[in-house]
């Protein structure tokens, strides 16, 4: 089994806020991330697919195809957007790095068919902070 990873970057704004909570509680739990004017990051997305190399091409998947899939499914929706205000998945869900990883998985999973399967999505919010989702319940 080979694991193949493609990186992509996108830049987006967000803030953390739970509508069910008081302003005080939001600020206590989320700190500066609760600033409702938002802030932003240069995110790095790592998409890992798993499979055996094709006997003819030697590819697990075509990297150009994978790049295009990430571009269409994720970057077109999120790049240079405000995640809370402009994307359906974060209208109700807080766009934490964990939830961004889960949502990116949801956008990509259906598109990866055939012998290769989506194995892992990792999202770096900064070079020091990342979250990962592997499709586990």
């Amino acid at each position: 089994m080979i694991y193949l990873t493609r990186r992509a970057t996108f830049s987006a704004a967000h803030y953390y806020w739970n509508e069910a909570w008081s302003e005080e509680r939001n600020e206590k739990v989320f700190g500066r991330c609760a600033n409702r004017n938002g802030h932003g990051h240069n995110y790095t997305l790592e998409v890992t697919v798993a499979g055996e190399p094709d006997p003819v091409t030697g590819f697990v998947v075509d990297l150009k195809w994978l790049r295009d899939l990430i571009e269409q499914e994720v970057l077109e929706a999120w790049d240079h957007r405000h995640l809370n205000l402009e994307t359906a998945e974060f209208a109700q869900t807080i766009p934490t790095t964990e939830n961004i990883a889960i949502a990116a998985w949801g956008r990509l999973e259906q598109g990866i068919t055939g012998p290769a399967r989506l194995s892992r999505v990792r999202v770096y919010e900064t070079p020091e902070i990342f979250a990962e989702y592997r499709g586990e319940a």
Partner: protein
Amino acid sequence: MRAYFGRRYTLSASHRLHADSLSAEQNRAVYGKCNNLHGHGHNYFVEVVVAGKVHPETGMVMNLVDLDAAVQARVVDRFDHCNLNLDPLFVNLVPTTENLCKAVYRLLQEVLPAGLLERVRVEETENNFFECSGE
């Protein structure tokens, strides 16, 4: 849903790799430059990964602020700008990065909520790193 959350920290420390049970010659053969009498140092990266269900109210596996506080108190304050050989943990244990990685894992496991710590990675240089998952 189960997700993984990782955070990287840096610490700078010195060490000398030397096993008391080996002769001077054997130590030089095994550890090479790392056996230099006066020690040497590294800028270590410590990567801590926690795993668990994403909390429905916060969207988080664990609050970053709490993770930072635990790593700062248990690991960075203890080892940063120190000589690892002088730490009580390494009195009878060679402070290789393997052993440092295991020590960091244990120090964090003692204070993090049960079952949350997934993996500790310690990078000694950009070309070598060590991982411990408590196995």
